């Protein structure tokens, strides 16, 4: 590995993590605005134009709030939990390709931080880790509501992780690879996976809602039942970490959906050659297309949140084990039969 590779990796890391964190910062603003429109309200409009400086004001507010650590908590885990809530999502970013290759100083650089051959497996390994943040928080807080939230989160995550994993099996049966770049390439050459795998997309989308603890599956924090669930005892910057973790995970899953089902940076009337013909502008266009697609899925998260009520816990388990899991298996079977040589 020479200096060029290290510099290129650093540049990609900086661009992608900052894009994610800024989006994670502005998603609450988007969410508040969209929810306001749905409810015939105006939404944040006081800080800056259309409330655009609201996220910055909120961040400062959280930083300067008192960081309460209750006396009855397990200090080590209590401090570790917020870190575990943020880190897995940022790890997953490493394998997500976010644009076509760029030409820098005569060398071709793929816009993916780590081009792993086991891309999707890496994603599932780390999205499985995300539950630790919540479980640690629930356990370390040493009080009943966080505990219940943590237990719910672990049960929910285990159930939906399986559906999540099975729903994409059909995709790499088609692409014959676990590598993210291959999956995108296959969609650029053929058609998007959302059209060839509609059932897989539906299951993945539903499981993604559950994985990121978004309504209608936000049982770990269920305000109406559990106060604030696993982060009841948290305040100030530690609470912000959970918040940022949730929104970062939302973006990561939106990016995953884009890569796996919506053809990554592909546009219907363009192929790899036309992107390459535009040179680095093509790469920039690809990155923009990728962001727009991800943002569309983020909007879907918000839209669904303000449409559907929360599931009951038994309904959640029923849906996961009795509906989504068999459907995912059926999807694999159908894909297998359709792809018979």
């Amino acid at each position, binding site marked *: 590995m020479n200096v060029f590779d290290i510099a290129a990796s650093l540049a990609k890391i900086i661009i992608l993590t900052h894009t994610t964190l800024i989006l994670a910062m502005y998603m609450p603003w988007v969410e508040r605005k969209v929810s*306001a*429109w749905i409810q*015939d*309200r*105006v939404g944040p409009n006081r800080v800056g134009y259309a409330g655009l400086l609201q996220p910055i004001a909120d961040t400062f507010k959280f930083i300067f709030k008192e960081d309460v650590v209750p006396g009855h908590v397990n200090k080590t885990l209590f401090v570790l939990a917020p870190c575990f809530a943020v880190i897995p999502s940022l790890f997953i970013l490493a394998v997500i390709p976010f644009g076509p290759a760029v030409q820098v100083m005569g060398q071709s650089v793929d816009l993916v931080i780590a081009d792993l051959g086991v891309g999707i497996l890496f994603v599932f390994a780390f999205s499985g880790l995300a539950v630790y943040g919540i479980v640690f928080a629930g356990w370390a807080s040493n009080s009943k509501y966080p505990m219940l939230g943590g237990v719910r989160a672990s049960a929910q995550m285990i159930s939906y992780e399986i559906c999540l994993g099975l729903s994409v099996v059909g995709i790499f049966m088609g692409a014959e690879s676990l590598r993210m770049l291959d999956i995108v390439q296959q969609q650029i050459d053929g058609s998007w996976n959302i059209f060839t795998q509609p059932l897989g997309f539906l299951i993945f989308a539903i499981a993604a809602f559950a994985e990121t603890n978004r309504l209608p599956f936000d049982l770990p924090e269920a305000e109406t039942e559990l106060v604030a669930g696993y982060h009841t005892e948290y305040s100030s910057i530690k609470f912000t970490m959970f918040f940022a973790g949730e929104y970062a995970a939302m973006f990561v899953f939106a990016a995953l959906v884009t890569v796996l089902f919506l053809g990554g940076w592909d546009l219907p009337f363009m192929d790899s050659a036309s992107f390459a013909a535009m040179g680095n502008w093509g790469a920039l266009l690809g990155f923009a297309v990728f962001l727009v697609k991800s943002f569309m899925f983020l909007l879907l998260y918000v*839209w669904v949140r*303000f*449409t*559907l009520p929360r599931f009951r816990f038994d309904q959640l388990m029923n849906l996961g084990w009795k509906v989504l899991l068999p459907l995912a298996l059926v999807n694999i079977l159908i894909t297998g039969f359709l792809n018979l040589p």
Partner: protein
Amino acid sequence: MAKVVERRKLNFWEELYLPAIVDGLGRTFRQMFKPEITLQYPEQRPVIADDYRGAPGLVKDEEGREKCVSCQLCEYICPPKAIVIEPGEVSEETSYDYSGIEKAPQEFYIDMLRCIYCGYCEEICPEQAIFMTGEYELNASTRQELVFDKARLYKLGGTRPGLLKKWKHKDDGLAAEEH
């Protein structure tokens, strides 16, 4: 005896829930483009009805005379005991003719933190001297600032023309006696 409610069995499409979810998403989507009903409060104000029961204030008649004769009925009726009146004689230095009225409040305090805006004071006042105004923004940094004194209550109430013409009648009466 408990009534047994027959639950209709859901058909296949209803059991899928997806059509209902799509319908719900459609409804929320249409809702996004409807006009907001928010009132941008400090800039825009709600329309206050005439009989709105805001903070009580004292009123003067169209000739600028105090109507209150400090009978203390409002002080007596006030459920939370928010009103304190110091009765006294009408001062000699006033420019207008009191025509026989002897009493006027020396001081008149209403503790707005105690007031429950019931409107009993307005209802019981025989002189139509105290009214519930449209004022609803009562805030201060100390409790003492919200104990309104007489000057402030008169400022709040202002003048109300076209009320009971007590002074007028008294004037006429005196004039008739002199003749």
